[in-house]
């Protein structure tokens, strides 16, 4: 943990800086930037993000079960297999929605 102490303090003395507004323009291949940079995002990849939230939780559950897998009786793995099968159908549906771009 203390490893990162020097790394956080080192760049502090780097960060002296002369103000120079002309150089601070956003890089746009040499052109003057136009328009709002943080424009609205496309929704195209939103379903993947949702799937990430759901399967993040699933992965954590699987880890908690996986640690003591070898010491548990066999029927506990049936439970987890049931758990995964229950999630397979919405996963298929989400992938179906996600790969069809006209939905977004």
């Amino acid at each position: 943990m203390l490893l990162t102490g020097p790394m956080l303090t080192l760049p502090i003395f780097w960060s002296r800086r002369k103000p120079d507004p002309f150089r601070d323009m956003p890089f746009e291949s040499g052109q003057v930037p136009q328009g709002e940079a943080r424009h609205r995002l496309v929704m195209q990849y939103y379903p993947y993000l949702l799937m990430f939230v759901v399967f993040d939780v699933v992965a954590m559950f699987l880890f908690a079960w996986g640690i003591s897998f070898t010491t548990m009786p066999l029927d506990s793995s049936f439970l987890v297999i049931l758990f995964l099968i229950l999630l397979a159908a919405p996963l298929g549906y989400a992938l179906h929605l996600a790969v069809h771009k006209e939905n977004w």
Partner: protein
Amino acid sequence: MVVFPPTTPQEVIALILYIITSHTFITIIIFPGFIHLTLVVMFLTWYERKLLARIQLRIGPLYAGGPGGILQPIADGVKLIFKEIMIPYKADKPLFLAMPLMLVLFAALPFAVIPFGQHWVIANLDVGLVFLFAMTSLFPSMILIFAWASNSKFPFLGGLRSLFQQVAYEIPMWVSALSVVMLAGSLNLTAIVEAQSKIWFIVPAFLSFIVFFIAIMAELERLPFDLPEAEPELVAGWFTESSGAVFMVIFLGLYMKVYLMSSLVTVLFLGGWWGPAFLPQPVWFIIKTLIVATFMIIPRGVYPRLRVDMLIKTGWTRLLIIALANVFLTILLIHSGILSAWGI
């Protein structure tokens, strides 16, 4: 004689000596810690350029002293430190400056749980692997915030791509690591390595090794998965606007992550520090890790890159399903008792 607080000069010297020679200090500052990390990361930057040059019949770094320009990273570092930090117009200054630091912090923190040898580990956590995954899962949000804070189009687009790519490959990565956890019966990385004393897990869990390797290649944004920084389209991806020391800090963080992931592959699949006894354990560990890093660098010299939606789709459809199927496979494998010869 160690006294705290020290009063005489001898006691001060004794205290300093005590601190410097203590195992905690050595592990944190010198060997698996700060100095070792910095040196290896600098070596990696040089090594990557040299290796790529060899593959593409170029020469690579040459002039900066030593054999083959091995002092090039130091020259680069000095150059970058003395360059001016430019902050884009209307950028979110605190976030823009804080995020690179956080990036390095969270790339360096997980090294605390990586066992470089039987006793060469800073913090022997019981939840080591999950700690590692929790730390790496912070990267997408930091990259997104940094990209947003730059207030510029290229970083923003690059940051979004990077976000979705990392998000898409994180789950296959975790799920493929699950079979190793099931085989070892522990989340403690030291225990995982010790479980491999008879057989490396690359043999019983070969499929998950493949999935894991592909997933970390994508996670690290290496070619052929380096869309977030596709030069023809997006200049340098989410760190286009960074310059000078900010760039250096980000670069440091990224290479640290490369080293982290290679050492994770070594721990999970390649038997960690195990090897013939004529070399000490950490040496074996570092040799294996550098070999893994080599295999991660080679594709960069060879392959073109994919398209972003294809990439994400592949991650979610193929890789995730293979990883989930692999879990079933591991259940069968363990319960069939084939592996009992190796004590699993």
